[in-house]
């Protein structure tokens, strides 16, 4: 039983990271109908910048250093997010649908190799400056770091929800996602709104990047790829374009994955081992989409030309 709870806890931590990244995908998709393939790499850049800021300033206490690293990472990521939209997506807004997909792939290749040029191909260990306390929950352990991750992720998601629901910017974003030309007629500057979407998504990515590298105490130029893929899967699982869906999908995917990794051996009598962990995410996704083709809580879009 305690193993079960332990897996649930691990899953929730992983899931809240997925959820933060998935929000970036889903916001962009909701507004532009575009898979921002480079988003995973933005997360990676966030992790790398944060890690190297922490490494560069060894003397400072963690309570100053971590927020500072986070701010630096967020600024870099937001700049990159803004630039990606400006350079790679905006000129192609009226182009055939697959053209921005290819530039997204191109940008993702560029960012990955840029990171490799700057930080090298090695794995970088995360400096052990974070609190390492352990707490007992129903016979399972949860570290202070894990608590921080879940709490911060929760706060970010709450904040984003408030931003979208309550503010002027949020209302403009909702209007743009519903119908860009009409939103424009109503006086919304949709270019600004789209830029804002990318910047907000990238800031969330920076936070997620720091979390994931702290959680696994490692960062690597290639880490964004699989993470981005999983987060995108989570966004689709929940219903892409839907904020609550991204959060639900992220958490669900995290829990399913860690339960799957923990129990797959027992379930199949040792035939399949925990290295099939990654398969779980995709099987669940395919299963869900067969029965609910627009995700768990995605709207059922009427078929139209």
């Amino acid at each position: 039983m305690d193993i079960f709870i332990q897996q649930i806890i691990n899953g929730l931590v992983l899931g809240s990271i997925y959820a933060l990244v998935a929000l970036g995908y889903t916001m962009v998709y909701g507004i532009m109908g575009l898979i921002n393939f480079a988003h995973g790499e933005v997360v990676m850049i966030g992790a790398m910048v944060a890690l190297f800021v922490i490494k560069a300033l060894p003397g400072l206490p963690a309570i100053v250093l971590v927020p500072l690293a986070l701010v630096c990472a967020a600024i870099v990521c937001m700049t990159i997010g803004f630039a990606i939209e400006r350079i790679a997506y905006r000129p192609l807004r009226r182009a055939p649908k697959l053209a921005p997909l290819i530039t997204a792939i191109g940008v993702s290749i560029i960012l990955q190799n840029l990171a490799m040029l700057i930080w090298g191909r090695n794995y970088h260990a995360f400096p052990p400056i974070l609190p390492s306390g352990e707490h007992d929950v129903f016979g399972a352990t949860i570290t202070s770091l894990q608590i921080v991750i879940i709490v911060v992720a929760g706060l970010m998601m709450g904040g984003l929800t408030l931003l979208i629901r309550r503010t002027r910017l949020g209302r403009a974003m909702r209007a743009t996602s519903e119908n860009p030309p009409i939103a424009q007629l109503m006086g919304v500057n949709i270019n600004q709104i789209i830029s804002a979407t990318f910047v907000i998504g990238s800031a969330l990515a920076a936070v997620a990047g720091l979390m994931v590298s702290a959680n696994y105490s490692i960062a690597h130029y290639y880490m964004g790829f699989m993470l981005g893929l999983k987060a995108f899967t989570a966004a689709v699982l929940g219903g892409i374009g839907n904020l609550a869906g991204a959060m639900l999908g992220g958490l669900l995917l995290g829990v399913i994955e860690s339960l799957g990794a923990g129990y797959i051996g027992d379930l199949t009598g040792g035939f399949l081992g925990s290295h099939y962990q990654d398969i779980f995410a995709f099987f669940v996704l395919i299963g869900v989409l067969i029965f609910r083709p627009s995700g768990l809580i995605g709207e059922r879009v009427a078929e139209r030309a």
Partner: protein
Amino acid sequence: MAALTFDSLRHDRRTAIAAAVGIGIVLAVFPFIVGTTLGNSWLRILDFALLYIMLALGLNIVVGFAGLLDMGYIAFYAVGAYLYALLASPHFGLHLPVWAIIPLGAVLAGIAGALLGAPTLRLRGDYLAIVTLGFGEIVRIFMNNLNAPINITNGPQGISSIDPIHLGGITLAKPLTVAGITVPSLHAYYYLFLALALLIIFVSLRLEDSRIGRAWVAIREDEIAAKACGINTRNIKLLAFTMGASFGGVAGGLFAGFQGFVSPESFNLMESVMVLCMVVLGGMGHIPGVILGGVMLTILPEFFRHSAGPMQLAVFGKIILDPEALRMLLFGLALVAVMLYRPAGLWPSTIRRREFRNGSTADVLKEGE
């Protein structure tokens, strides 16, 4: 008047034949030119370019004709390659001949395509993309892990010492002597791949203008209207998946025989993405464009590989940046630049080009009137 038309027609046919003969001669001597001027490494790249053309044309059926975004296409290539590897290597001690394996690979990959297609028929656009992507990953992960409890794929180590392609008593691994001319192995593979690529091009061209091809395009443009016109969209979409996949299976089998080694590494998501880039960058749905895309995207990274190091040496006197990272960086930049300047692809079909200029198919139709 009639005589004139007849004359010009005959003239056209004569130029067409002349052009075909010319292209044939160029294609026939091309490997010798490349081999002597650029060396064997580029000859290998040329062979790979032909394989990628086959793959890109296969994916073009799914993405270009039928408009179904498939991001796990490399799985079918993997099916073909692993089938060849298992049936013609010491791994199981089987050594079946190539003419038995390649068609079997096409059939098996086709079945895999139908299996993927069936549950995804209801999905649209990007949902389909992520599911196909997941399918590709599932296939790769299984190949990576099916070495226990029963060793089928030999896991991450892959399967090595696969039989080279051999027809009858002739093996392509050694230089061939045909009618007094000695053809080195890489050249022989080139001719074999060229023959199959031409076959696939021919099939693609004939499909494009067939009832099925038109049905695919109708589904791409508007699925509901296509259904209303009496097209059985379910079967036609499944057929697109099956046909596209079978091309991939053929290319995969050839790859395994050519390379002599397969491992899950060769079939990762990046490969699927590359083939997709070939199709879109070349000009979706336009066969000459897709061929161009396949050639370009095979050669470009290799060109950067060969030039990234020496160029730095020439300019700075030493290697400052990791050439491998620099090469992919330049490649990424090239992808973005090409799409920004030619959003409809390098060589789009005329209809698509007009469509893009005017915004919608309806305008194109008006223009035609």
